[in-house]
């Protein structure tokens, strides 16, 4: 069934699961094992330590902070709202 305004609970549950999955991914990728994907090898050239002039792992952290912030703002505007007093 397509999510509509008439069945917000089901729609919110689905959205909640998606947001949870994205947030969990951001935690695993940002400060977690995903760091290994971008962490330069010990023998790598010095330029590979940087991305757009920033230390590559700092830039990586900023990106995943953006994802986390987007998830929290989306949750606030959608699934958390109906329970307001």
């Amino acid at each position, binding site marked *: 069934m397509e999510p509509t305004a008439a069945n917000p609970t089901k729609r919110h549950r689905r959205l909640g699961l998606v947001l949870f999955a994205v947030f969990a991914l951001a935690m695993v990728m940002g*400060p977690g094992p995903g760091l290994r994907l971008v962490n330069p090898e010990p023998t790598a050239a010095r330029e590979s330590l*940087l991305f757009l002039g920033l230390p590559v792992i700092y830039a990586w952290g900023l990106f995943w902070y953006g994802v986390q912030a987007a*998830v*929290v703002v989306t949750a*606030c505007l959608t699934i958390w709202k109906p329970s307001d*007093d």
Partner: protein
Amino acid sequence: MDTAATTDLGLLPHYCLAGYLLLLLGIGLWGFSKRQAGEEDYYLAGRGQGWMLSSLTIMATFFSSAAMLGAPGMVYKEGVVFALFALNVPLSGAMIYVLGNRIRELGRTHGHVTPADLICSHYGSPVALRCLVALIGFLYAVPYVVIQIQAGGIISSQLFGGEHAFEIGACLLSLVTMLYIMIGGMRSVAWTDALQGTLLMGGMLLAGAAAVAALGGPSAFFAKVAELPRTSLTVPGTTGSFTPEKLFTLCIFGALGSMIQPAQWMRFYAAKSAKALRRSAVIFTLGLTACFLFGVMLVGLGGQVLYPVAKPSADGTFEYQVQIDGQAVAVSEADLADGGKPLPHPDIGAGPRDFDKIMVVVLKRHLPELLGPTGLLLATLVIIAIMAAAMSTADSNLHALSAVLTRDIYAGILRPNASEKSRLWVGRGVIAAATLLALGMVFVSRGSESFDPIGMIMPMSLLAIAFSSQLLPVTFDVLFLKRGSRQGAIVGIVAGMLVVLMFSPLLAIVTGSDSAAVGLFARLKQIADIGFCGVAVNVSVFALISIIGKRN
């Protein structure tokens, strides 16, 4: 260059600090004038905090000297890897609503004041579980208050200099904090937190801007950072301590543990509505993480350029100084990555725990250089903001400890028929006793070469959070799953706490610092966060005993 050679701030810090402390006492008196009779008003400000006050008091409680001194100190020591620890903040932010709103609803419905009220009413355990939850509150709050008082001493010695500046600063911070909590309860604590939260958010960002400006602006800053040793720009950091797996568990349990500690739990009870917590979650996530990533973390990184920890060698590698038997010895990057304890630049300090001073030194030297008299004023205000961070965390924890020991132990177990008036006075006595205990620990630690339970600010904070993390399994069970048993909860918490204790300095004191057990737990600590190890055992035992109990 020694500390005395840093910019002389004159009498400005004295006036600013005096004005600030008087303002805090004024807020304490205002809180007293607005009081209403009863425990609920003293501990939860009548459950009427709106979103602005809730968000600021939750942030100020979360912000501590660990954030303002410890985090930049760790980045200065370990490099950019520790800046990623800031990604625990959005998880904490989300928990303000996810956990906080359910805690608030149950608290309002059943009249709960402390974490033990909610947990024990769910499991029907009036004594054993209540004692354990109160013990966790104690084990979290006391070390946390101790490190805030220590931070007050560090700031005072940096700000004023002189032979007894540390002792005077530590005593002053303790005394003023103790007074305004005793006078006004939660209302005073929350409003002083609001002032302190605003001050320290501004202070964090200003400190980052000062570090960037001191190196010639953003482009020059990152160009100089790019020349740092390779270990400062990569994972697992200078000493090899922060593997991605360890950082991951640290972020998860650092976030969850600090959000279910008693002081935050009581702020959830005190929130007026779901809307207050919803907005607080967003403000916390967006604002606080930015303050870390673009503020204090840049101070640590800039500190590595301004006050290098490593000297370049002719072969392109770097050489560090480490302390062995009280002597500074030069070692290579590779030797350090095997777990050595580096020393900071001599301008920052002479001991391995002096990394925490980088923030104050950068502010005190470089803001006045950049901005002249305005810089002097701003440096003073930011240093006072660091003191605000320490005081706002100390006040919240002392206030929560008072509620926990009075309501859960004194009125819950020892004297169930005690009048509300006597409970309030016992609560005030607890605040005074806990403050004096924490102050005594700071002085003992400072005066003894062999007994140093405090060490650097950040590791001590993480140990305290590991204790509060042991409430996670029961909290999730009470709020969401509702499948655990009372016996499982009790044994699980005991098992988790014992595991965490194994990582504390207590083990070294009991078995000797070179024992096999100390070595084993030191190796485990390199792999994962202490809180994670405790919670893993806690959950396993909790689940197992709950399942066995249901089958029987």
